[in-house]
C-alpha cells in the first residue's frame, strides 16, 4: 500500500489549519477552508541526446479561503507558524471585506457529507523523485541517440510532478492526499530538399510513476523504433487533398478534441459566464441541459475523478468533495455539467460532483475538469475494422496543433501523422493536413465507435484556465472512432502558398 511521504506528514498542517480556521471563525466567516500544498516538480530537457535544461523545484505554502458576509476572501502564505496562518486568515477576511461592495451575488455552497479525517494516494509503483536524475537523463539520452540515427535533431523532455495536499474546513472534513504524474515526450526533426518536418511520440501523459518509462503502461521500444521511418515517410508524402473526408481518428488524437470540444464546453462555470472575459463561455448553455443533441446516439461521455492513472483523479477535490463518476453526454444528449460546490447549489443540482481544483497554494480553487472520457462500444470494432468501412478518407494519429473558439464550437486540429484511406485500406501518409468542424456537426457525424480493445487514456499535463491563470492535469479516455464528411484543409494552401 502506497503511503504519503513522512516528510509531508511531519509538517505542522493541523496546527496551521486550526489556527487559520479558528481565526476565520472569530472574525465572523460563515465558511473557511485551509489547504497546505507541497508540489514537487522536475523537468529535464535534452537536445540531440545532451542535457539542455534541468529544473528541480519544490513549492510549499498554504491557502485560506473564507466566505464572509456572502463574499469570497482568499489569501495565501508561506511561513509555517500558527501565528502566520492566523494572520493569513485575517488577510483573507480583509480581502472579503474590501471586495464586498462590488459583490452582488451572495456565496453559498452545496452541502457535502463531512468525511472526517481521510487519506488518499494515487496509483503508481515508483515515485519518480526517488530515481536519480542522472539515470533519467541517461535513459532519455539513450532513446534520443537511437532516434538520431534517422533524424537531424531530437528533443526529449520529461515532466514529473508529485502533488501533496492537506485540506481542512470548518465543517470538519480533513483530507491528506498524494498523487504522482509523469509526461515524457520525444520529438524527431528532419529536413529534406529544403523542407523540414517533425514527429513526436504519442505516449500520453499519465498518472503513473517512473515505471511508465521502464515498460509499464507503454511500449517505448516499439514506438521509438518506428518513429524515424514514420518521419521519413511523412517527409516524402504528398500534400493532402483539401475537401470533405471520412476520418478514422486514433485515441492519441481524439482525446484532445474531446478535451476542447466536450471537456471545456461542459464546465458549468463557462456555461454560466464566469469565464466569459477570458477562456470564454459555452455553446452548451444551461437552458439546453437535457435537450441539446450533442452528438450521435453512439456518444456517451462521462466525467470521472476516480479512474485509475487518470491525471484528474483524486480522492477528494479542493473543496472536500469526494471524487465521483458522472454522466455528461448520454446517447448523444447533454445530461450533465462539471460542478463545484457553489455552482451546484446555485443551479439546484444537489451535491457537487467534485471538480474544484487549485494548482498551487497561491491560487483559489476554481471549477476544473474531471477526466472526461468517451465510452467505447461494448463488443465494438477494431481500428482496422473502422478503416475498412471508409472508401475515401484519412486515419489520424497523435495530437499536434489545436484551436477552438471561445464558445467551444469552431475548431481546427492537426495531428502527428495522417494516412490516406482508399477502398478501406491505408494508402500511405499525407502531410499539410488539418481538420476543421463545429462541435455538434463533428460529434453528430460520428458513425461508429471502436470497442474496448481500441481504448486509450490520453491526457493534458497543463491545461490552462482561469484568472489568475492556473494549470491542471486531466486525462481523457476514448476509443478509435469513425466520423463521416469532415472538412480537411491543406495548410500550405491556407498559408497562401
Amino acid at each position, binding site marked *: 500500500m502506497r503511503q504519503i511521504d513522512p516528510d509531508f506528514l511531519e509538517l505542522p498542517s493541523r496546527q496551521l489549519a486550526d489556527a487559520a480556521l479558528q481565526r476565520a471563525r472569530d472574525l465572523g466567516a460563515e465558511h473557511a477552508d485551509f489547504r497546505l500544498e507541497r508540489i514537487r516538480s522536475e*523537468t529535464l530537457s535534452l*537536445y540531440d541526446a545532451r*542535457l*539542455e*535544461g*534541468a*529544473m*528541480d*523545484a519544490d*513549492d510549499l505554502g498554504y491557502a485560506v479561503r473564507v466566505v464572509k458576509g456572502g463574499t*469570497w*476572501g*482568499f*489569501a*495565501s502564505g*508561506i511561513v*509555517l507558524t500558527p501565528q502566520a496562518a492566523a494572520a493569513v486568515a485575517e*488577510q483573507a477576511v480583509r*480581502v472579503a471585506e474590501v*471586495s464586498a*461592495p*462590488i459583490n*452582488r*451575488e451572495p456565496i453559498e455552497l452545496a452541502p457535502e457529507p463531512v468525511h472526517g479525517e481521510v487519506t488518499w494516494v494515487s496509483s503508481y509503483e515508483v515515485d519518480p523523485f526517488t530515481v*536519480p*536524475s*542522472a539515470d533519467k537523463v541517461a535513459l532519455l539520452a539513450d532513446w534520443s541517440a537511437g532516434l538520431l540515427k534517422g533524424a*537531424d535533431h531530437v528533443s526529449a523532455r520529461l515532466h514529473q510532478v508529485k502533488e501533496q495536499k492537506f485540506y481542512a474546513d470548518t465543517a470538519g472534513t480533513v483530507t491528506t492526499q498524494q498523487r504522482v504524474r509523469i509526461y515524457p515526450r520525444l520529438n524527431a*526533426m528532419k529536413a529534406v530538399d529544403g*523542407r*523540414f518536418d*517533425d514527429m513526436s511520440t504519442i505516449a500520453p501523459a499519465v498518472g503513473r510513476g517512473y515505471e511508465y518509462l521502464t515498460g509499464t503502461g507503454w511500449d517505448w521500444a516499439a514506438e521509438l523504433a518506428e518513429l524515424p521511418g514514420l518521419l521519413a515517410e511523412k517527409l516524402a508524402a504528398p500534400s493532402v487533398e483539401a475537401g470533405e473526408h471520412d476520418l478514422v481518428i486514433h485515441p492519441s488524437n481524439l482525446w484532445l478534441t474531446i478535451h476542447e470540444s466536450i471537456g471545456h464546453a461542459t464546465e458549468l462555470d463557462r456555461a454560466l459566464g*464566469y469565464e466569459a*472575459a*477570458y477562456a470564454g*463561455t459555452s*455553446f452548451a448553455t444551461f437552458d439546453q441541459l437535457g435537450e441539446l443533441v450533442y452528438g450521435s446516439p453512439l456518444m456517451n461521455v462521462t466525467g470521472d475523478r476516480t479512474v485509475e492513472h487518470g491525471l484528474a483523479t483524486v480522492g477528494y477535490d479542493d473543496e472536500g468533495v469526494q471524487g465521483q463518476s458522472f454522466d455528461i453526454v448520454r446517447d448523444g444528449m447533454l445530461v450533465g455539467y462539471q460542478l463545484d460546490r457553489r455552482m451546484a447549489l446555485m443551479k439546484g443540482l444537489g451535491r457537487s460532483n467534485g471538480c474544484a481544483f487549485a494548482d498551487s497554494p*497561491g*491560487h*483559489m480553487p476554481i471549477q476544473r475538469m474531471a477526466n472526461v472520457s468517451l465510452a467505447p462500444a461494448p463488443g465494438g470494432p477494431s481500428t482496422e475494422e473502422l478503416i475498412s468501412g471508409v472508401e475515401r478518407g484519412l486515419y489520424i494519429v497523435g495530437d499536434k*496543433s*489545436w*484551436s477552438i*473558439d*471561445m*464558445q*467551444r*464550437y*469552431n475548431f*481546427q486540429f492537426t495531428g502527428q501523422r495522417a494516412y490516406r484511406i482508399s477502398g478501406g485500406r491505408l494508402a500511405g501518409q499525407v502531410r499539410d493536413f*488539418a481538420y*476543421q468542424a463545429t462541435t455538434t456537426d463533428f460529434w453528430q457525424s460520428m458513425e461508429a465507435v471502436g470497442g474496448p480493445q481500441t481504448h486509450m487514456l490520453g491526457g493534458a499535463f497543463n491545461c*490552462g484556465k482561469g*484568472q*489568475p491563470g492556473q494549470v491542471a492535469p486531466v486525462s481523457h479516455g476514448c476509443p478509435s472512432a469513425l466520423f463521416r464528411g469532415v472538412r480537411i484543409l491543406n*495548410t*500550405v494552401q*491556407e*498559408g*497562401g502558398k
Partner: protein
Amino acid sequence: MVERALELSASDGCIVLADEGSTANLRFAGNTLTTNGVARSARLTVIAIAGDRVGVVSRAAVRPDQLADVVAAADRAAREATPAEDARPLVEGVPASAHWDEPVTPTDIGVFEGFAPALGEAFAAAEAGGRKLYGFAEHSRTTTFLGTSAGLRLRHDQPTGRLELNAKSADLKRSAWTGVATRDFADVDVTGLDSSLARRLEWAKNRIDLPAGRYETLLPPSSVADLMLYMLWSAGARDALDGRSVFAKQGGGTRVGERLAALPVTLSGDPSAPGIECAPFVMAHASSRESSVFDNGLSLSPTDWVQDGTLEALLQTRHSADLSGLPVTPAIDNLIMRGPEGGRSLEDMIASTERGLLLTCLWYIREVDPQTLLLTGLTRDGVYLVEHGEVVGEVNNFRFNESPVDLLGRITEVGSSAQTLPREWNDYWTRTVMPALRVPDFNMSTVSQAS
C-alpha cells in the same frame, strides 16, 4: 539569503536567484465580483557549476535552516550532471545595484482601494445601461536578487498590472473587450474604458453576416501584439541554426539580414522604454533553447529584432551567438513595434478605409506549421465592417490561418504606436507598444458562430 547561499556552495561557481513575489487580484462577471485574492511567494534558485556541468535546484519558502540542504542539492546535481554545452565563464564586471539592500515592498489588496469603488460605479452604470461587465484586475510585484560567485549583486523590482474589461449586452449576443497595462492602477480610467465598450456594443446592434475569404483588415494594436509576440517567441537562434524554424535559411544559417517587410517597420526591445520598463539584465532560472543560466547578469540594451523591415537579430545566448557568429542578443521582457514617422491613429485609418474589417482581438492562437509560422486562431469580441470610412455594423466571427512573418511582407499601412495590452498573451506578457496595421488580404478561413 543570497550571500549565505553563495558562501555555502562548494562548487566551482554558483549563481543564486531569490524571487520575492506578491500579487492581488479581483475577478468579476455579470456586474459582480466572483473571486479575489492576495498571495505572497518566495523562491530561491541555486545554480551550482562544477567545471562545465551545472545543477539547478529551486525551492519555495526556504527557511534559513534549510538553506544548506538546498545548496548541497544543487552542488550534488552539478557533480552528477552531464557537461552543459552552453557552459561559459560567469558574467563579471556589472556594477552592483544601488538598492541591493533596501527592503522589499510587496503589493496587497490596498492597490485596488481607488480602483475598486470606480469598478463598482462602472457596474452600476453598466447595469443601468443594460450591459454586463466581466473581467480581471491583477497587480503583482516581483523583486529578484541575483548574486554570483563572480561578484555580481543585481536586483530588479518589477511591478506589473493589468485590467481586462469585457462588456456584453444583456442577452450576451454582443460583446466588446478592452484591456490596459499599468504599473500601479493609479492611471486606470475604468469609467472611460466602459464608455468605449458601450460605444462598440452600439455598433454591434447592426449585424452583418459575411462569408469566409480574404479581406482588407485593420488589426488594432492589441491584435498586432499577440501576433508579434508569437513571432518573437519563435525567433530563437538555435532553432533557426538547426533549420527548424521560419527564420532558418535554406541551405543553412539564419535569415538575419533578410528583408521581411516592404514597409520600414521596426520591432525592438528596450529595458528602459518609458512605461514598459523591464529587467535590464538576464535572469535565467534554467537553461533552454533561448536562455542560458551562464548568462545570468548579462546587461541588456535596446535591441532591434527587425530594423526598417529587415530581420536584424534573433534571441541569442552567448552559446548560440558563438554558433551563429552573430551578436549576443538575449530576450528582453518588452516588445515595441513602430512604423515610419507620421503613422495615423486607428480612427484615421478607419476613416480612410473604403471597405474592410476592423478586428478587436484575436484568440486561441496556435502554430499550424513551424516552417512558415502559419498560425490559426479566431476573432472575438467584435469584428466590424467599415464602409466609406465608417463602422457600419458588426460582422460574425472568423477562424483565421495566417503567418505573422508573411503578414509583415504584405502590410500596406502602419499606424501610430501606443502602449497596449495583448489579449491572448497578457498572462505572460503585458509590456508592449504597438501600432495598428492594415493588411489587404487577411485570410479568414471559416466563419465562427461563437459570439
